[in-house]
């Protein structure tokens, strides 16, 4: 199917989609009503659509494997692709608001699955608004890792409520994460880095990882190296600000 494409949205040599045909604005309004389908409840998420090799039919109700990693605002998919081979038995999903970018990631995953048989079957992407619909996709304490890499800073104070990390949205992320689950955030904007760290620090259901734990985690270095944004920051010699926290049970 891919080799029959007449227009060259995909590169002929690697089969991967070419970014220039999937250009999109960097910003999207997260508060507007959705025009895309949203599952009514987590039980309605069609795993056979996202992971066809692992879930051959959509009638497979008894399968106990569920999505455990979520990349919120996955952009062009760099992190998911790096994580896929690092954790081959874990199901992961990327959530992205922009439709062209989601299309790009879908095509990229499909192409990788063709060129690397057996691999990349555990990652997928969905176009959705994670500020509104996280409870629709994930059951309570389903996730073990959540990623928020280089989120939109929304500099103006009146737009601060559009930030993806906020004291109130952390309640929902804490709901989706299991106790002991980890939330990873990174940004190159210092003010946003301070904001995210302050939100997490003040939230009763999150505690900071120690620096030893951060260094020992194999995922940590992927935060700045695996994504297109991270590589751009690195190329320009910019600084990054990380906040990595663990979900804890609230003290009574």
């Amino acid at each position: 199917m891919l080799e029959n494409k007449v227009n060259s949205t995909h590169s002929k040599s690697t089969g991967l989609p070419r970014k220039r045909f999937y250009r999109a604005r960097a910003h999207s309004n997260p508060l507007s009503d959705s025009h895309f389908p949203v599952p009514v409840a987590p039980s309605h998420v069609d795993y056979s659509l996202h992971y066809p090799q692992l879930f051959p039919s959509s009638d497979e109700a008894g399968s106990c494997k569920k999505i455990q990693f979520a990349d919120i605002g996955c952009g062009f998919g760099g992190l998911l692709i790096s994580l896929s081979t690092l954790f081959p038995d874990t199901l992961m999903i990327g959530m992205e608001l922009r439709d062209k970018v989601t299309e790009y990631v879908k095509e990229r995953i499909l192409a990788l699955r063709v060129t690397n048989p057996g691999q990349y079957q555990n990652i997928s992407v969905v176009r959705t608004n994670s500020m509104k619909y996280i409870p629709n996709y994930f059951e309570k304490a389903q996730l073990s890792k959540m990623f928020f890499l280089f989120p939109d800073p929304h500099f103006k104070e009146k737009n601060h409520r559009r930030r993806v990390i906020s004291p109130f949205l952390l309640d929902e992320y804490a709901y989706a994460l299991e106790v002991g689950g980890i939330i990873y955030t990174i940004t190159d904007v210092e003010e946003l880095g301070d904001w995210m760290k302050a939100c997490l620090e003040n939230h009763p259901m999150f505690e900071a990882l120690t620096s030893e734990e951060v260094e020992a985690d194999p995922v940590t270095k992927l935060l700045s190296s695996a994504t297109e944004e991270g590589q751009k920051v690195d190329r320009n010699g910019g600084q990054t600000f990380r906040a990595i926290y663990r979900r804890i049970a609230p003290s009574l």
Partner: protein
Amino acid sequence: MYVKIDLFEQNNYSTLWFFDSGGCAVYLVENSGGSLHKDSIRAIRYRASGKLFVSAGDDKLVKIWSTESWRCISTICSEKRVTSVAISNDGSYVCFADKFGVVDVDVEGFDGNQVFADKKAAPMLSHYCSIITSLEFSPDGRFFISAYRDFKIRVNVFPKKPLDGAHEIQSFALGHTEFVSCLAFVCTQEFPQGFLVSGSGDSTVRLWDISSGSLLDTCDIREKAGPLEFKGIEEECCAAVTDLCTIPDSTLVAVAVQR
């Protein structure tokens, strides 16, 4: 004294009327230095003891009235227009929600005859960008439920210190396919913790277990009401559930439907 409440709107002023069991109207007196509600009243709620009630609406004010003196004893300012109000079972907290999804909480502690100055409340929880249509406390007071325009119902653990925020979400009750308009609890002797009943624009009334968020039953209003009620209207009409009412210690639920 049995009291029935009606709401009237005239000339942009909203008035609350109370009728006692003899059918005589009782007028409300505004005494806290402010004025009566200036815009549509969206929500009213009695405290469990019946001694106080709260009204709130589009004028961004939450007013607390004493039912003994029929005076307004406190006014709280909200930042946005208020869409619903709830009072905790022990009467010590008043929660109100606005159209941006923020629920604020204010402490009550007075006995109905004192007059308090205007005060602000603290935000307790928020679900961004979705109008909260209904607020309820669970019968045992452990949980606090909010219903949204974007089809969701959220069950929060009501914290010991609500002014610090309600961060722990117990469950989401998901299943409605249209806005959720109203919530109520059905409690009987055998099930004192009660079941949550919700009505929605998708013409269903659903029954939920709140600690797990699981859907126990769905009732399609159009089936129950039957073709007779729709008097010859052939096409599929959207019958939204607009309100629910339950009776204490009974399994009956009254449903208001808008055609």
